[in-house]
């Protein structure tokens, strides 16, 4: 299982993501720069980390979504390669049209940086099989625009198909997100976007390892790390 981390100007969680993938898989991911148009064939998981790509100008993730590397990622995703977008990575995936909906300004209008609780709504995915359905995990969030919105018809279809993967639980919705949505996946099940930062809760030095299961699932090392 080979992973890759996308690096764009303004993304700042790439090092945390590289550390998490390295620790959990035992192998360092390769890095992919914004201008690259080809991603090696042996990459099975592409991760777009958090940050403030292109200064969040225009809309969060809007400029990044239109860079050449995103076309390459889209082609890989169409072929079934797993793609995980965290925080700004999630915003980039919705702006690129790879996930439904949009991420708007938090209803509080404030940047929120704290820990929330997440419910694993769907544990039967390539990103969540390390968890049990309905399991509540802890996870940090840090964002200004995490207020998920999608039209009601699209949402109903997503719910029916199990594409709402994570919800904020126990009244911890930090941003006014519709239906407490914290993470969604595409219809094929190989692209997941989430606002919380699982890469920041993977070892005891972080105060817990609740986020580890997402990487263990995506990297296909659940049995090895269980």
């Amino acid at each position, binding site marked *: 299982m080979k992973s890759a981390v996308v690096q764009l100007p303004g993304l700042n969680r790439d090092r945390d993501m590289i550390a998490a993938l390295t620790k959990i898989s035992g192998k360092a991911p390769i890095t992919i720069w914004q201008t690259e148009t080809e991603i090696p064939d042996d990459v099975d998981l592409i991760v777009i980390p958090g940050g403030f790509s292109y200064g969040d100008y225009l809309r969060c993730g*809007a400029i990044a979504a239109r860079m050449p590397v995103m076309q390459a990622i889209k082609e890989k995703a169409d072929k079934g390669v797993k793609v995980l977008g965290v925080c700004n990575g999630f915003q980039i995936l919705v702006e690129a049209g790879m996930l439904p909906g949009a991420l708007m300004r938090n209803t509080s209008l404030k940047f929120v940086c704290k820990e929330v609780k997440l419910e694993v709504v769907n544990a039967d995915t390539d990103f969540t099989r390390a968890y049990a359905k309905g399991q509540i995990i802890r996870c940090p969030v840090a964002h200004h625009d995490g207020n998920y*919105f999608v039209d009601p018809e699209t949402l109903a279809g997503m719910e029916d198909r199990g594409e709402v993967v994570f919800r904020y639980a126990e009244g911890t919705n930090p941003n006014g997100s519709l239906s407490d949505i914290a993470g969604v996946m595409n219809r094929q099940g190989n692209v997941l976007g989430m606002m919380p930062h699982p890469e920041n809760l993977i070892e005891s030095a972080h105060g817990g390892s609740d986020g580890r299961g997402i990487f263990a699932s995506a990297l296909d090392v659940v049995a090895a790390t269980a």
Partner: protein
Amino acid sequence: MTVTLKNGVLDPQGKAIEGALGSLGFSGVGQVRQGKVFDLELDGTDKAKAEADLKAMCEKLLANTVIENYTIAID
């Protein structure tokens, strides 16, 4: 081009501005919607082409049509 949030999409910034206007004593203000204005110069004099180009710019980049509407004015 003017880009605003669609009706039915909650606009937290518009709400905050509405509250601020009320606290300044402006009564009867409702449904404040915040948006963006893009002012740009185009080469050429073909208005139909300009309109088509501006529409494409809005669709491809300037507006997120999941949540936003846009209008175009040329002069």
